[in-house]
């Protein structure tokens, strides 16, 4: 089997990815590409990154055998990669540390970020505080309202949170606004993108920084069950936690890789955020070519998911590629099924999962039922659900 070696030198995964940006950003991306090439294999840089992952984040995150859940579901054994136990409560910090260390080496005193649910914003504000960098986070004004605790966390960490009023006032508009800031302040500013999207080298760089999830998993699974899992399941919005756990497994035969998108109110309603599952048309947004939810005029349409972190009309270009070459499978889970899986994990295992990760859990339950008891599913539990308790309470008509 030929070893997987993507993307190409200009960031293409087949027809996907690339560098679709205005001329003003080309030079900045070239500078970033060159610097990342310089440091991605640099032992001193990697040692510093590894040190922070261990002592600041608390890695390696454990893998946990969810026995009661597995028994209850009946079928394959479900194991959880506990990214929820990371500092700041999700996988996002793996990437922000890597990019912030790069920003320091590039002499950029200011970092900016976009955020939807606020997890990436918090992870960026956290490392900015730790490294003494100025931090500005763009967040759709709708999300600012929905995610007030995370907004306050970012402010406690010294970041400036800018509510974005344009477009649909959500994640994609926050990304547009961060790009506009970057174009204007490119001389002193590093843009820390939170997912495996954006122009090259972001999809590759974010994947590389998140790959620690899969690298650890391969070692831990051998230790715990003596072999690799039959299936790895992860939720996909932009797709960074999924890419992080999938990537080290791409060349491992007989491990199914399954990305779970948000089916929202149901695929048939059109109210979802699942461009891969829906086979949406291919287009260009936020610097790369990928599957995109759009209308006939090529305008991006509004997406729906109960989980703000999955509420994105596109998807990382490498997922688009893995779908086309059939190395990964993509499915979607509705708001209702994700909520059921959320409550299930709370009650059977004493773990409150993020609503994003609950999508992966929901599909894992469904899949486990079709498998035998000696088979193994590894779920990337990408974040903890403390941030979601207001949303969950509201659904039950409870005021906190």
């Amino acid at each position, binding site marked *: 089997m030929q070893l997987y070696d993507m993307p190409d030198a*200009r960031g293409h995964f087949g027809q996907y990815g*690339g*560098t*679709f*940006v*205005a*001329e*003003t950003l*080309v*030079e*900045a991306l070239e500078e970033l590409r060159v610097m990342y090439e310089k440091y991605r294999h640099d032992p001193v840089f990697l040692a510093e990154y590894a040190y922070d992952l261990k002592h600041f984040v608390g890695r390696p995150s454990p893998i946990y055998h969810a026995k009661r859940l597995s028994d209850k579901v009946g079928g394959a054994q479900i194991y959880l990669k506990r990214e929820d136990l990371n500092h700041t409560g999700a996988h996002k910090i793996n990437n922000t540390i890597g990019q912030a260390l790069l920003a320091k080496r590039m002499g950029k005193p200011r970092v900016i970020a976009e955020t939807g649910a606020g997890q990436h914003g918090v992870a960026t504000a956290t490392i900015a505080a730790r490294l003494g960098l100025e931090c500005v986070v763009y967040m759709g004004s709708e999300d600012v309202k929905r995610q007030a605790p995370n907004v306050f966390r970012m402010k406690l960490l010294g970041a400036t949170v800018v509510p974005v009023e*344009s*477009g649909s006032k959500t994640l*994609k*508009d926050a990304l*547009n606004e961060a*790009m*506009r800031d970057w*174009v*204007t302040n*490119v*001389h002193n500013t590093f843009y820390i993108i939170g997912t495996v999207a954006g122009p090259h080298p972001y999809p590759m760089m974010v994947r590389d920084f998140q790959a620690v999830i899969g690298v650890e998993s391969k070692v831990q699974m051998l230790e715990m069950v003596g072999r690799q899992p039959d299936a790895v399941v992860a939720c996909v919005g932009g797709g960074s936690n999924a890419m992080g756990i999938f990537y080290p497994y791409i060349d491992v035969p007989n491990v199914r890789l399954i990305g779970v998108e948000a089916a929202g109110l149901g695929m048939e309603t059109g109210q979802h955020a699942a461009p891969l599952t829906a086979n949406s*048309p*291919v*287009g*260009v*947004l*936020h*610097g790369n*070519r990928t599957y*995109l939810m*759009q*209308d*006939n*005029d*090529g*305008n*991006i349409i509004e997406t729906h998911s109960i989980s703000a972190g999955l509420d994105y009309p596109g998807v990382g270009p490498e997922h688009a590629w893995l779908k086309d070459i059939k190395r990964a499978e993509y499915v979607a889970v509705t708001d209702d099924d994700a909520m059921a899986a959320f409550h299930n994990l709370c009650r059977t295992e004493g773990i409150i999962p993020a609503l994003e990760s609950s999508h992966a859990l929901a599909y894992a339950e469904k899949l486990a039922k079709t498998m035998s008891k000696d088979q193994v599913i590894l779920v990337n539990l990408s974040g903890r659900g403390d941030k979601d308790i207001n949303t969950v309470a509201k659904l039950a008509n409870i005021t906190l």
Partner: protein
Amino acid sequence: MSRIQSVFSTLKQQGKTALIPYITAGDPHPKFTVSLMHTLVEHGADMIELGVPFSDPMADGPVIQRASERALMHKVGLTAVLEMVKTFRETDQATPIILMGYANPIEAIGAVAFADRAKAADVDGVITVDYPPEECGGFVKELRAHDIDPVFLLSPTTEPKRVELIVNQASGFVYYVSLKGVTGAANLDIVEVASRVASIRQQTSLPVGVGFGIRDAATAKATAAIADAVVVGSRMVLAIEASNETNLLSNVATLMAELKAAVDAA
């Protein structure tokens, strides 16, 4: 010779600089766009840059973003924009029309079909903000095959080696973005722009237009002295935004007359 080339060559003989106003198609309402275009021409537009509304205009400042949102409220997409150009051409076959927009609406139609339809509507040039030359070789070939000029942006950060790459793909003219930032941003440094335009001229014989940051008669005049074309976008859209149905055309005419006088006085 393309319509764009012939306008530039005529102006050059007259020792004049082109004035290119930008409006977003469908703003403030699709029913005004064609009359706005004729008004622009009557009051001194040598060419028109017609913005194609897009849901995610990443390179645009708040003024043009709002214009895009107003147009999208009336569902004005690329197909509707091409229809507007067709209608405009019924009474004006002389003024070059340059579409300016983002890649995805073109991707949604497909490069070949887009070029066919743009040609049928008699479009002269296309600026696609997020199609750098490395990513749009096939598209440029299609435009060329249909005698449509692919117009590219150059920025203050574009290195000479890249200028070379870009001018080799471009035709009609090149568009120098006079500042780092989005459309309608802060003041431009005219000395800096003059030196960049001079160095671009050493690398190409294509006319050089300058835009982004031209906000009044004074900046238009200063820019006209060093460029082959002055592009005015956000200022034009602001005038549209500040108008109502009854004074829309007269406000735009007044602004155009001021800008035209300034450009001609350079």
